[in-house]
């Protein structure tokens, strides 16, 4: 861990906030991707079952 001196709070909070935001964005995108994929597969299965 480097010595951040008197600005440690600022630097660490900047990194924490940014990485947290990026993580939320990624997780949200992945979660939605998974959900939509599952829903689509259900519809496709229903469709293939009919044909």
């Amino acid at each position, binding site marked *: 861990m480097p010595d951040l001196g008197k*600005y440690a709070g*600022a630097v660490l909070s900047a*990194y924490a906030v940014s990485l947290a*935001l990026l993580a939320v964005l990624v997780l949200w*995108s992945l979660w939605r*991707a998974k959900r939509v994929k599952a829903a689509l597969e259900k519809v496709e299965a229903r469709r293939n079952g009919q044909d």
Partner: protein
Amino acid sequence: MASIWEYANPRKFMSVTDRVLPWIAGLSAIALVAGLAWGFFLTPDDYRQGSTVKIIYLHVPAALMAINGWLMMLAASLVWLVRRHHVSALAARAAAPVGAVMTVIALLTGAIWGQPMWGTWWAWDPRLTSFLILFLFYLGYIALWAAIEDGDTAADLTSVLCLVGSVFALLSRYAVNFWNQGLHQGASLSLDKEENVADVFYFPLLLCIAGFVLFFLALVLLRTRTEIRARRMRALMARERMA
């Protein structure tokens, strides 16, 4: 010679992105981790800014992607309006939240950096103000997509909004510059130090920028895939209703 427009076909797009997405995601993770770690652990403090200079590795790439994200949406909107490729419109839709988050990161890291440096969280500096306005444009764009049910109508309307918004965002940029030129505090307080940063800061910064670009790309591709699937689902369900 295969035309670039082939990739606008949803099937082709899905199969190609299915193969390249893991690579882009992996590369972006490597570049991001390496760049940020290099910047955070291995670079010295700036003689004037102290350790806050490390914030640059988040702030500058995020700010770049905030603007480039909007430019990408503009390009995709134009492609949709001119060539009517659905994938293009959906990619613009997919990029908007990513761009908005980048704008927020740029604003927040800027504020956190500004607090010790300028002694205030927020100043109505032209650059900061422009980003705030850009964020408002992102919000409006996302809200308009969300408000309209029919996919093609939404794509048309948001594309025109993106076009008109780009012109007004540019205008606002100049208006804001003009409005606060008297208070502008000179380049020493500007965050844009690419021109005069020393090499020790420059190379990790470049790596971080590359990481953010790849990250943006990977996320937009992932989200575009989701939008394409949602659209396909909607089309299939409409077909079920008709049959």
